[in-house]
């Protein structure tokens, strides 16, 4: 078990964010963390990283208490926040400064990733655009080879080709002892990237399930006019929706549809997936 949260309570001043939240995440998966604005996605990530402390309940990440922020724990964690900061140095120099702190840092991998993203190692980061800096930080995070990689809106500011590179890179680094958590609004960016989905809403986890399980239990297809669905929307190609997969049909996961279905019918979704958790 990579991350375990039990009966977590957290609030900002008087605004309650989580109440009795339970969540379990395992290594060997790339998780997509979805939720509406203000649902608490960033807060959840910060709680996992030890940047925020819960008021009640317990969190266990890789066997450590995140709030203790022990060096051994921090060296196995890399967090890429939504608002990034990089010093006025060249990435080549900055990487050398960070290397002593991450035991599995790989310079070769950094160079490869930077080349893939077409970002120069020898350009001062203060002169880069926001998108370039984001890419540089993503490369650095991947090259540190930490067991837990947490990213908050990593594709914000990335151009379309870069998003594609990003998907390829994540797929290549996802190993069975690693856990990658990506929080984003850009649901479509998660296509072919994640293999598990966590939806958070109204201070609780609505669903925590693998993409395979979703397509096993639900089918995403064109619907007849009068066909009832968990969620449907009109598109150019007709009425596109998600229904319960009673016939074992194969379909491609449409994350946006699934997300909307979860928000609209949370109890139905919970009933469908029961106590499914992402486990090896």
């Amino acid at each position, binding site marked *: 078990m990579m991350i375990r949260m039990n009966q977590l309570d957290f609030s900002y001043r008087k605004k309650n964010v989580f109440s009795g939240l339970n969540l379990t995440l395992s290594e060997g998966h790339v998780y997509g963390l979805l939720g509406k604005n203000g649902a608490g996605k960033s807060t959840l990530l910060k709680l996992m990283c*030890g*940047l925020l402390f819960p008021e009640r309940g317990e969190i266990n990440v890789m066997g450590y208490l995140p709030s203790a922020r022990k*060096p051994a724990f*921090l*060296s196995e964690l890399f967090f890429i926040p939504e608002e990034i900061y990089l010093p006025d140095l060249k990435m080549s120099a900055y990487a050398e400064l960070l290397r*002593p702190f991450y*035991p599995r*840092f790989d310079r070769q991998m950094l160079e490869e990733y930077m080349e893939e993203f077409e970002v120069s190692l020898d350009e001062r980061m203060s002169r880069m655009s926001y998108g370039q800096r984001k890419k540089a930080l993503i490369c650095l995070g991947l090259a540190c080879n930490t067991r837990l990689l947490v990213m908050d809106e990593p594709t914000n500011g990335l151009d379309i080709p870069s998003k594609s590179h990003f998907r390829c890179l994540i797929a290549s680094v996802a190993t069975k002892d690693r856990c990658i958590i990506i929080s984003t609004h850009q649901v479509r960016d998660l296509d072919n990237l994640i293999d598990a989905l966590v939806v958070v809403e109204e201070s609780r986890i609505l669903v925590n399930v693998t993409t395979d399980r979703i397509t096993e239990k639900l089918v995403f297809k064109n619907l007849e006019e009068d066909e009832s669905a968990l969620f449907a929307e009109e598109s150019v190609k007709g009425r596109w929706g998600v229904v319960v997969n009673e016939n074992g049909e194969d379909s491609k996961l449409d994350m946006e549809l699934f997300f909307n279905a979860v928000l609209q019918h949370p109890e139905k979704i919970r009933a469908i997936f029961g106590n499914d958790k992402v486990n090896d």
Partner: protein
Amino acid sequence: MINCVMMKEIFDICRFKALAWKYYRENMKTILIFLGVMVVVTFMVVCKFNPFRMEYTSLYTGSNYLDRYYGMFAKIFWGLLGFFLLFAASYSFADFMSGKKSFGALLLPASSFEKLLLAILNSTVVVFLLHVAVFYSVAHVACSYKYTGFKEADKIAVAESWSGFSYPVLTSGAEIVHPKVGNVFSVVDRFSESSAYTREVEDGTGVRKERTVYFTPFVVWNLLIMYWLYFVFVFMWGSITFRKRSALLTILVHGLFFLFLGWLVYRVGTVFWKIPREEAMLYGLYFYNTGELVPLSASWLLLLYIVPLTYVGIIWKKLKNKQV
């Protein structure tokens, strides 16, 4: 640089060196700007409080010229040191308080003890060493003379420094004695000496005079260090407590608190120490007592180290519990 092993939780020298090196490389520009400001401010202050003024010289006052300007140099040195130390201390945890930078600062794989130690070293030892280097360099440079001339009205030989000081030639004739920047640390020995007193002590052989130095140099050095550490840690506490305008808020909070405490002490003190008339006066005669205190050893004052150490403990606790 090789990877540092992450097994030691509280302190690891390899990790600490990497942390320090990272800090200095990342903030090199800021450090150089700070150094530049130190040079400019030191130069301006040394020029403004020109210790080579005519009136300080033996030609005019008959006083010990060297003594006078050593004293002025010491005042400039210690005054500027205080200013720079507190300035550095009030920014010591700026990275942990700023939104974007705080993620990296808090999640960098180093212990909070190491991060605290680095902040303390930067706000004390590093600033102190920089200040000594800058002060003596600037003062020596400012002292270097350019040409000589005569102050016609007084017919006194004058040497003029390129930086605008003019000072009289100490020996008549051509020889010019450069004013030398003295040892500003001699204040410790001077203070220690000034605390010496002679008591008449009666023993078996009669009355003899006994000279006691109340503040030994060891105690004075420690008091000096403790004094500076206190102010540095107060401002470091402010840096980690207040997000913005930390120096101002630190002064405000402490100032208000001490005012209140002083008022409380005054109120309680005047109640406690009201001396009844019959204990102080007999008819028209008022009795007072300035008798020799049998002084506690000045070494007891070193117990006051508990104050700056408490601040350090609280700063450490706050750093460990810092949330974003």
